[in-house]
């Protein structure tokens, strides 16, 4: 039972908690595996596994119980000295398609000497950045909505 779930699925559980998007939406971006590889490559397997485990446990236990879920994420992930800053970075990666360089204090704390600078993960990451969906628009320069759409009332979301 334990080993049945793939790690990408754990990553999706965690990502769904952090972003507020359903797993199917996140899966639909085609970026889950790419993002997970990115985190693994930059942060290493140990911490990545730790945050995925924490996330998937909360996701399974409290799914659809918003209040308890929020409580648990705050207690076990966000306020955790190692996992908190990483969780924030994973959230912003999904929202902006950008990996932000981890803060120096955090790197010192976990003992990482060299790390990736801030960068846009890929053209697709930019195009799929969730912020545009949330605000009812589209990433500038991609997924064009069509002539004259800007003159219509915004979509109800």
């Amino acid at each position: 039972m334990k080993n049945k779930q793939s790690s990408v699925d754990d990553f999706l559980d965690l990502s769904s908690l952090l972003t507020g998007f359903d797993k199917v939406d996140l899966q639909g971006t085609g970026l889950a595996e790419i993002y997970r590889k990115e985190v693994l490559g930059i942060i290493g397997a140990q911490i990545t596994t730790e945050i995925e485990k924490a996330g998937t446990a909360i996701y399974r236990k409290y799914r659809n119980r918003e209040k308890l879920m929020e409580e648990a994420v705050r207690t076990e992930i966000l306020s955790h000295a190692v996992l908190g800053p990483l969780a924030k970075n994973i959230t912003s990666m999904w929202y902006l398609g950008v990996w932000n360089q981890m803060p120096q204090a955090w790197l010192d704390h976990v003992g990482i000497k060299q790390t990736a600078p801030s960068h846009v993960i890929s053209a697709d990451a930019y195009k799929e950045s969730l912020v545009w969906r949330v605000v009812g628009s589209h990433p500038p320069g991609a997924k064009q909505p069509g002539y004259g759409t800007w003159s219509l009332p915004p979509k109800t979301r």
Partner: protein
Amino acid sequence: MKEDNYDVVIVGAGIAGAILAKELTEKKKRVLLLEAGKASDDYLSYLEVFYTALAKVPNSPYPNNPNAPSQNVLNLGPIPAGAPNLNGYMVQYGPVPFGSDYTRVSGGTTMHWLGHSFRMLPNDFKLHSKYGHGVDWPISYDDLKPFYEKSEWEIGVSADVEDQIYPGMGNNFFGKNYYYPMKSLPASYLDQKVAGGINGMKVKLGKNAYPLSVITTPQGRNSTPNKGYKPIGASWDNNIGQRCEGNSNCVPICPVQAKYNALKTLNKADQKYLTVINQAVASNLIIDPETNRIKGVTYKQYQSAQSSDHTSHTVQGKIFVIAAHAVETAKLLLASSAANSSDLVGRCLMDHPTMLTWGLMPEDIGSYRGPGATSHIPTFRDGAFRKEHSAFIVPVDNWGWLWGEFSPGSDVTRAINQLNLFGKKLRGYLDGFVSRQFGLQFEFEQLPQHANRVTIDPNYLDQLGNYRPVVHYDISDYTRAAMEAAKGVSDMIFAKLGVEDYTELQPRRYRLSPMERGQAIHSRAQGIWSALIAWERTNQIRSLTKTRNHGITKTCTSSDRAACRLLELPILR
């Protein structure tokens, strides 16, 4: 010397050079076009570069080319007294940083222009006699009018004449039967809300009250064609980009080329008569000591932007046109000691300093959709207030706080890191906050000031040994007074619309940290001088042929530019 002797040698494949190349080759003149940058046959690769650029500033899609460098707004910075800022390509002495840029690839700066295609007003040409400031032009609006028409048809401007009502336009601003080549683009939803709220509202400036109006903006992007016009699509496939698709990315790059760029004009030139040499940087003009006319151009040709290896060549021609952009044209003339008996070359550099104001509308206005701006407030383009301060135009921004705050990237970062939001609450917060974001741009006229100038200095050279532009630039009290007045106008508009003001008018930091660059996932420029953000319009109207006659190095918009160039054409007949 190359053996070829061309009728006309043009330096620069921007809009000015391209229009000339087209018009001249149509008249069977043999034209050589020298272009410093790459040919833009690889437009789609620019788009890929744009997608992965951390800070999506105007020049982000275009190659960083040390052999034909251009300014990048990311290099702007405070200027310490006495010493220039050397961070970017421009050597900036200030005291105010010149906040604009230009693009050195085939197609030039229209690659990332916004496409707004305004005509100047009759009183702009008589500023001194009418309002006691600046200078009068040696030509009038009426002289330029037929060329505006021609260039609007060349660019492919979308607008309806009946909507275009400006102060001081007189009663024959448009010819009797004139129509633009394409119909107006629809005003955005938020434009409609703003127009509904402020149309007719009276705003006091000095002694007079001015009724506000919100009208659609003429712009060089494809909409529905009028009789006699065929929209021109992408340079690689005419079926693409026949209409604006709402990519909301006109600056820095339109993915489908629904927005005009000079490649479209260049493609129309009669290729039988046109020779183009790309990656050829003109570095010196050879002047015949007897006739005092230009008889040749020396250019440096390179194979790769990565290497400074190059060969030098000289070409001859009967007539030379330097259309290398206001800054580069001045540089080349200065480097060659050409046409400068007046000591006016490079002087009176102008921009249109911009002030942004921004706030939250009471309801979702669907920001971040459509072309940069589809409407504007023309009220302050002309009026008695020009005795006290400069005129300004006010585009209503469709792109929310993008420019002022790097939104929505910065909102995401703040919500996650400072507000400690995640999950559904994060979504809810961003939804409510971002789609209400509203912004106005106030773009100000600058007067010709001799001290605002481009010069050269042998201490500052680029990789090929060409001069870098050395820039002195300031904003006068006449323009600053308009900024004050404009803030008052903004306050009244915000009050009427119930906008919660978020404008931050303190000086802003210049340099972006890596984290901030991440936030700036799509920023046209970065905050500069007390929210005065100056983006380009550096155009000299003056050309080689006119240099000695008068002292205006007036900046003008692309359509002015095109019109000015066309005005000079008759000398070739």
